[in-house]
């Protein structure tokens, strides 16, 4: 006999954008459309919480990075915005009127007002991943060692912006924020503490309280840098599909929520609904001893995931919870 129900919170917005018949470009540029997509999802699926779009380009664009916005794909940053100490020194920390930030804040506000039966989480990028997008990801990997002062200034600027942005997401009424920090997963645990956690922690300390939770997502962690994620102080940690969840949860204190990790592409998008159900049930079974586990996708669901697969996921959760 199980003693607790498991909450299900897949990270998704693309299925909602598709349900309301809009394009990705519409949703990432217009806070109204963005809101309608999230609202629609909340009406169709029994998620324990909603999330806004995981768009890892909004913050970089605010700093001035050029962004590509295809009609039906996730936007991407291209090129390199800063490449040396002078560039970093003269880089301005943008305010919240830059780029598409106002539209994202609008979406957060509308969601928080209209979706009252469950919490809504905003989204942002993590400081190391943002710095990597501005400086070039391969270059920053080396620069952390050979240009430590430049990179610490860049990380500081990124952190100041993310802090402001999270504060505004909080003021918009969201229950928290999913912070995506995938690039930190390419570092060793020690380096992840030095170049990511230290900065994530500043954001957590500034915004997290009883009404606002930081969910730290790192899909680059294959199991080698969990300690660095725990040290951030985030009240919830979210893992990608390459993480072995039973092993991971053993490294996380039980007052921290552990979320994950059904493969968003290999399973949600490409498998059939029977397989989605089986994988979900299997994960739930493996994690059944842990009351701090929330079942989720390993990352944001991409465009064009079949509805039947999302239903199969929730059905597997229902069946599991019926045994409580």
């Amino acid at each position, binding site marked *: 006999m199980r003693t607790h129900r498991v909450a299900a919170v897949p990270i998704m917005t693309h299925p909602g954008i598709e349900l309301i018949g809009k394009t990705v470009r519409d949703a990432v540029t217009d806070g109204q459309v963005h809101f309608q997509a999230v609202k629609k999802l909340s009406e169709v699926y029994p998620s324990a919480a909603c999330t806004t779009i995981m768009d890892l380009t909004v913050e970089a664009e605010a700093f001035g990075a050029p962004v590509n916005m295809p009609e039906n*794909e996730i936007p*991407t*940053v*291209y090129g390199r915005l800063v490449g040396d100490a002078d560039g970093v020194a003269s880089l301005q920390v943008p305010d919240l009127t830059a780029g598409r930030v106002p539209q994202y804040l609008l979406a957060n506000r509308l969601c928080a007002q209209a979706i009252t039966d469950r919490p809504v989480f905003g989204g942002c990028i993590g400081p190391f991943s943002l710095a990597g997008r501005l400086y070039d*990801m*391969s270059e920053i*990997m*080396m620069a*952390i*060692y*050979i240009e*430590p002062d430049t990179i610490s200034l860049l990380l500081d600027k990124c952190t100041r912006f993310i802090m402001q942005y999270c504060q505004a997401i909080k003021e918009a009424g969201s229950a928290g924020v999913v912070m995506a920090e995938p690039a930190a997963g*390419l*570092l*060793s645990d020690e*380096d992840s503490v030095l170049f990511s956690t230290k900065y994530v922690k500043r954001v957590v300390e500034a915004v997290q309280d009883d009404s606002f939770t930081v969910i730290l997502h790192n899909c680059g962690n294959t199991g*080698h840098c969990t300690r660095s994620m725990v040290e951030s102080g985030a009240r919830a940690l979210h893992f990608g599909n390459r993480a072995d969840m039973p092993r991971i949860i053993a490294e996380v204190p039980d007052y921290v929520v552990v979320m994950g990790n059904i493969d968003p*592409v*290999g399973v949600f*998008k*490409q498998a059939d609904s029977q397989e989605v159900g089986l994988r979900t049930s299997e994960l739930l079974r493996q994690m059944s001893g842990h009351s701090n586990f929330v079942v989720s996708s390993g990352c944001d669901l*991409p465009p064009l995931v079949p509805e039947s697969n999302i239903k199969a996921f929730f059905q597997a959760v229902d069946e599991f919870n019926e045994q409580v």
Partner: protein
Amino acid sequence: MSEILEKLFECVEFGKINAASPYPPQLRGQDGASEYTQKALAEGFSPAEIMDTALIPAMTKVGQKFSENKIFVPQMLLSAKAMNAALVYIKPYFSSGEIRRKGTFIMGTVNGDLHDIGKNLVCMMVEGAGWDVIDLGVDVGPEKFVESVRQHPDAYVGLSALLTTTMPNMKTIIDAVRAVSPSTRFIVGGAPVSADFAASIGADAYADNPQQDVEALDRFLQERA
């Protein structure tokens, strides 16, 4: 091995680029790969000897440590950078014919895909193993590959994709290149790519790390010979 080549090996293994670089802490203030290469040449070591006894074996060791999760992406990139700092002084001998290069390797991340860390690592390792590398960058479509193969008809081609949605572009590229150059051989890689997928699109090899890539290239060479 002579002391100077041992030092050079150490610099590449631990990513000590030059005297000014503060990394790694245990070699701070000492000469790096750049200085030791110049010294070795000045003392009369042949470029080939420097490559074969210091640079290439050091990169092989680095590749091994990476595949065993003993070092991570930053350490590997720094080793490759140290290797490149050494190659600055060795490269003039490539063109003079004093060192034989193994061949040319063209590499790019396929169109639609901007992930380049894996590609960069592979390029650096392959270059370190004695190949000329042409890095076409990210988001590279069939036309650019075709153009590059036209210029280097004997080259082998590497394709990287990290997104399930961009994997099919590998096939488009292979087909486009083979239409003009049927004998060109391809190695494909990237986290979501598998040996089965590679075979299904007509690639000649699949490798899941730079070390295996170098081995596959060497195998191609033997087959050609």
